[in-house]
């Protein structure tokens, strides 16, 4: 029990520390003091994150069951708030201004939706203790939860934040699959989602279309939309086997790579530490996710299990999509790399999620 807590804590701490090193390296050449101090803010966020981690590791996760509707409602409220009060940065309206920091509700919404889904699928039948989800029909199995996911997802996509929105959908499908829902339903869902995709094409923003086209061929717009992918691939590739060394990444430090401290932090890291460092980082992420899956498998409580699966899946998908996007294997979508990228919301939410995960493992024996 203490074991998983300790492992996750150490792994997360290492990853976050590597993140801070990378943020430091990507900003230390910049002129203004605010930029150069950005790693200090990240340290602060890490401390907050750790506090949240310990807090949620102590807090019985069953309380989330009770607070579930508040959490979900709160997330929706915040997302609405973004529409009306949100501040615009980099052409997207994703942030809410709080006292002294900007908060990104979509990060929070991901977790809220997972908690909601875990609760939804873990209702027990009154007659026996088995789960209802196995017996759900198409309405209660797919349509109803889909609506609950679709509302925040729509709000997020409209921000616009296509990456986080699609992330929600992927986690939803993953969880559906894990709830032993009939495959037939899941296929139906997938088909109904994929078929109208060509129609959605016209609903996409120009920059989103461009990003997708550029993903297919970055050279169509080397100085515009393709620039980031090209520079990111150069950054990663130039690292070679052993990397260029700490503070010697010319791509990230000389500003050739945009967003080198947030979404493209993996490129910053891999440029300096090469294949060795990059592979190690991927392994660290895998280990932490594996812990999540192990916890889920150990947990008897259905709510706890789905929660653990959901959190692990969320982490796994975010890490995969972000790194794949860094390497040009996935389209550029605005997804941070959990625990590494600069940004308070993502850091806090990730550590809360990890705290919940640890707590599930700690509490399961109580049942």
């Amino acid at each position: 029990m203490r074991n998983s807590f300790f492992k996750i804590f150490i792994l997360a701490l290492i990853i976050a520390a590597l993140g801070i090193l990378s943020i430091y390296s990507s900003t230390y050449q910049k002129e203004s003091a605010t930029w150069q101090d950005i790693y200090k803010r990240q340290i602060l966020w890490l401390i907050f994150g750790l506090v949240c981690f310990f807090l949620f590791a102590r807090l019985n996760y069953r309380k989330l069951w009770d607070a579930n509707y508040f959490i979900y409602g709160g997330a929706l409220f915040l997302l609405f708030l973004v529409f009306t009060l949100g501040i615009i940065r980099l052409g997207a309206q994703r942030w809410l201004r709080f006292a002294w920091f900007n908060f990104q509700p979509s990060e929070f919404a991901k977790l809220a939706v997972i908690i909601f889904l875990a609760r939804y699928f873990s209702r027990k039948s009154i007659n026996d203790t088995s789960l209802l989800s196995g017996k759900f029909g198409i309405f209660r199995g797919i349509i109803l939860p889909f609506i609950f996911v679709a509302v925040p997802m729509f709000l997020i996509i409209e921000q616009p934040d296509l990456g986080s929105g699609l992330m929600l959908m992927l986690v939803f499908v993953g969880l559906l699959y894990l709830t032993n829902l009939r495959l037939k339903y899941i296929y139906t869902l997938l088909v109904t989602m994929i078929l109208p995709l060509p129609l959605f094409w016209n609903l996409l923003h120009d920059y989103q279309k461009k990003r997708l086209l550029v993903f297919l061929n970055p050279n169509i717009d080397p100085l515009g939309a393709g620039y980031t992918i090209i520079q990111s691939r150069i950054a990663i590739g130039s690292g070679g086997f052993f990397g260029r060394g700490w503070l010697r990444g010319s791509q990230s430090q000389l500003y050739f790579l945009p967003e080198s401290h947030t979404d493209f932090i993996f490129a910053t890291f891999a440029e300096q530490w090469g294949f060795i460092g990059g592979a190690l980082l991927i392994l660290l992420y895998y280990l932490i996710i594996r812990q999540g899956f192990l916890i889920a498998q150990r947990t008897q409580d259905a709510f706890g299990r789905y929660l653990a699966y959901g959190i692990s899946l969320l982490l796994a998908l975010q890490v995969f999509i972000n790194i794949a996007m860094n390497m040009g294997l996935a389209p550029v979508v605005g997804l941070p790399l959990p625990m590494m990228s600069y940004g308070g919301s993502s850091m806090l939410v990730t550590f809360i999620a990890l705290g919940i995960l640890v707590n599930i493992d700690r509490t399961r024996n109580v049942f």
Partner: protein
Amino acid sequence: MERKHIINFIVIFLFFLLAAGLFNLDVRQGQKFRRLSDSNCIRLISQFGSRGNILDRNGKIIVDNKISYDVMILPQEKEDVERALALISRVLGVGIKELKIEFKKNFVSSSVPVCVVANIKPTDAIVLGEYKIEQPNIIVTSKPLRHYPYGSLAAHAIGYLNEIDRWRLTKLEDYGYKTKDIVGFGGVEEKYDYYLRQEEGGLSVEVNHRGKFTRVLGFEPPRNGKDVRLTLDLSIQKIVEEKLEGKKGSVILMDPYTGEILAMASFPGFNPAIFVNKKTKQIAALFHDSDAPFLNRAIAASYPPASIFKVVVASTALELKKVNTSTTFLCQGQTMVGARKFKCWDTHGPQDIFQGIAHSCDVYFYKAGLLSGAQNIHDYALKLGLAHQSGFDLAQETAGFIPSPLWRKLNKFQNWYDGDTANLSIGQGECLVTPLQAVNLMAVFANRGYLLTPHIVKAVGEVDLSARKNKAVAVPLKKKTVEVVASGLRRAITDPKGTANVLSSLAVKVAGKTGTAQVSRGSTHAWFTGYFPQERPQYAICVFLENGGPGYAACVVAKQIIEEMYNQRLI
């Protein structure tokens, strides 16, 4: 399989995919991306060294460099360029249209500065420098450019600078020459280019995505070229060019003991500065000029020597004992050689060798030549430095030509007749001699019997080259022969009927020989070649005027030169 395992496998697969992708980028394509990364952020800024100066024998500058200021524009934003051009046009008073044309012509890419105005005044450069803050995309760079303080002075000996051509590039690539290099063409600039040429240094700097400097990676200081010191004497060269001005031909003055060329002029000439300023029209006009202004007539062109060749015939006849100082021939204005009548240019009556040389009597030399034999004359001509390159240190020297019976037989399958010998004896027919050979021939009689290797470069950098020049070769002539010919040469001036009598009025005692070469078209070539002062020669001189009339014309030029040199106390 349970669904949780499948999900687990999917996740493992995805992460494995990431590792594989990373391997592909880092290890498989790492080299390529490293290169791309370097080219992203490393820029080379070249710094120019200056080409070596060319100095005269006393170290006075003939050609040097001056700093030229060029105005460049960094073409990043279109409006910025427009504004910058407007500013430049206002400061320099150049039409904005011309600037725009120049900008378009020189544009390479948005990250490379474009030169819009080259070679502006230093004051303008300072003014433009003041706008650095308002208009940071204007860059004023300085680089050394060739500067010719005396314009076309000694242009042929010096040569000019231009962009390297294909032919030279293929030959010089191995020595580190690159396309677009500026190299010497003709003269010292070409021959000593390797020493004169500067080495471009440079700064390799790291820049960020905006091209802004971040740090210096390496620095190699530029290296200046070595100075080349010539044997030319600037003041003599000036006099010579002044007197030759307007007459097609060349003048050479040489030290008759060392072979150092003190002055070398060829007219028509050119101003090498037009290549620096890239005055394309003027350059094209010069290249198309039928008078061949780029031809160095002193070394690269050969002409019939006419009467100055009589010096060779006299030496041969004396040396072979066919004539002696008391031998006289009667000149009746003509003589018969075989069945053909050969004319003299005048009727001289009885002539001994001194008079023969002084009056340039053709009849005397027909007879002396026939007695000596053509092959012997040819052999002595070779010994006196004709018909082969003198070993002069500039390229383009031609060998000239002296015919001989043997050559005629071998190459033309024709016989040699006495008439040919008679023609050879007065330096006509197939004979060709360069002015440089003529002056070198005179030097033999000035220094009493030594054939020199003329040269024009005294030192390269700190290294004195005179020790490395070929030693003077003793010509196999008896002392008596040389003295007799030399006094004949003096008689040409002192004798009232001497062909160069016009020079007798000079305060300096001159010895020499005139020549009037018949040519198939146009008026005759005029030669005067000699040395002065006669007792203790300091200078050997050759004045050659292409289609310049009789030898008298050359004497007049020589007289003006020697007079001016005397006035300037150079003798």
